């Protein structure tokens, strides 16, 4: 009854059964998080290394909390305070950490493919917490968990993902996972921020926000990566906001039970108006809560039994 995958490197190629098992398990961990004592002894004695080569607050804290809620021992590793700054290679770092008897590695790295590479240098279980422009699978899983929790199902729902699709690993993981779960995904953004050869499995691409929002059950706004301003990909922040920002006016044309999501951190007043981010349709904080439950489920399911 366990997962068929040994590592979570991405959602591409992960079966509907595996995704459903993770989401079902996460629903039950959600209940654990509502208890007065929000900790279970399940992973006592299991050490999980959080190997973060890129900045992150939400994802790192969420993983660390998930590990602690399961009674695993988290070991945090950030590049600024480690031998990486002395030039140690990724492979050597991994081998050294493994020599200290660890069970699982949660890795975030600026280069795509690092989690897959690590599976070849270690026997530990690898979980991808974001690699370059490739994938961020736990984010997509928590997004799907939130949608299922609020709307009761995934199959047949239309999701508009709006923003910088080109540079978004969140969009990629969601596109793969949601297509597997039978959802209709529309990716929308300025033509310069849309991938040239995308449309994996039935994902529709458009530069028209009206088209993307038409009939959408879920609107997922991506963060405009301000560090890319000046690279000529979009004319100005003001113009971007006018065309691709979500405000109350655009929201008013959508169905009453539409969900507004954002993976964070939000640029308030750019891709998302403040009164929308904090409004009735927003499930942004539910996403954060569910993130802990989904990560507990992934760690639990990958860590036990034969996999250990």
């Amino acid at each position, binding site marked *: 009854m366990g997962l068929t995958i040994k590592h979570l490197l991405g959602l591409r190629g992960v079966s509907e059964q595996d995704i459903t*098992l993770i989401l079902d398990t996460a629903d039950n961990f959600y*209940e654990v998080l509502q208890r007065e004592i929000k*900790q279970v002894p399940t992973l006592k004695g299991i050490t999980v290394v959080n190997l973060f080569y890129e900045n992150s607050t939400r994802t790192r804290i969420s993983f660390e909390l998930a590990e602690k809620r399961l009674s695993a021992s988290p070991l945090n590793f950030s590049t600024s305070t480690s031998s990486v700054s002395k030039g140690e290679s990724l492979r050597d770092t991994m081998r050294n950490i493994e020599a200290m008897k660890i069970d699982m590695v949660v890795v975030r790295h600026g280069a795509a493919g690092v989690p897959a590479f690590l599976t070849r240098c270690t026997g530990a279980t690898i979980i991808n917490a974001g690699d370059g422009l490739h994938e961020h699978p736990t984010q997509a899983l928590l997004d799907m968990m939130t949608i299922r929790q609020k709307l009761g199902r995934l199959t047949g729902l239309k999701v508009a993902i709006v923003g910088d699709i080109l540079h978004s690993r969140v969009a990629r993981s969601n596109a793969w996972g949601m297509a597997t779960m039978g959802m209709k995904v529309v990716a929308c953004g300025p033509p310069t921020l849309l991938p040239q050869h995308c449309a994996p499995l039935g994902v529709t691409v458009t530069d028209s926000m009206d088209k993307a929002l038409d009939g959408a059950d879920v609107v997922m706004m991506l963060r405009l990566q301000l560090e890319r301003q000046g690279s000529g990909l979009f004319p100005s922040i003001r113009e971007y906001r006018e065309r691709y920002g979500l405000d109350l006016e655009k929201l008013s044309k959508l169905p009453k039970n539409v969900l507004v999501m954002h993976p964070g951190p939000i640029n308030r007043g750019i891709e998302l108006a403040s009164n929308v981010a904090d409004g009735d349709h927003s499930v942004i904080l539910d996403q954060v809560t569910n993130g802990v439950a989904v990560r507990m489920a992934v760690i639990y399911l990958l*860590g*036990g039994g034969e996999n*250990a």
Partner: protein
Amino acid sequence: MKKLEPLMDAQALDRALTRIAHQILERNHDLHNFGIVGMQTRGVFLAQRIAKKLGALEGIELASGVLDVTLYRDDYRTAFKQPSVKVTNIPFDINGIDMVLVDDVLYTGRTVRAALDALTDFGRPKTIQCAVLIDRGHREMPITADYVGMSVTTRSNQEVALKVMEIDNEDSVWLMEQGPDK
């Protein structure tokens, strides 16, 4: 697994639960300070039925809870097949109450051990009592049941299989043995 011997039919099962309900009442006089919790999966339905009988005897509505002990098991690292995490839902405060924990079969005692651990995360009941439909022996821990539907002598290669109307479309208990079904 093949069927070896019937242990209970629907009527015997119902009578056993009725007797357990009466025994629970003998020991617990104040059902307003009382809670009953069934263990996943089939203990849940047994607890619901006992709660209904207790409610009918005393003329009150008695809710029952659901407990899944998967996260408290002691074999996470070694289990060959990973058990799936199921729903836990205890819709009442367990602090200071008399509690009955209901399971279908008492065998090694490890599930009850896990349940006791789980309950301490929900509060501190005044008492925790244990009711089981079948006690088949072979304990690996110092655990015993307060209310027993039937004690059966079994061998360790045998199994006790309970079916309940709610999910199996029949009420029955069979002693099973390894080997092809007839």
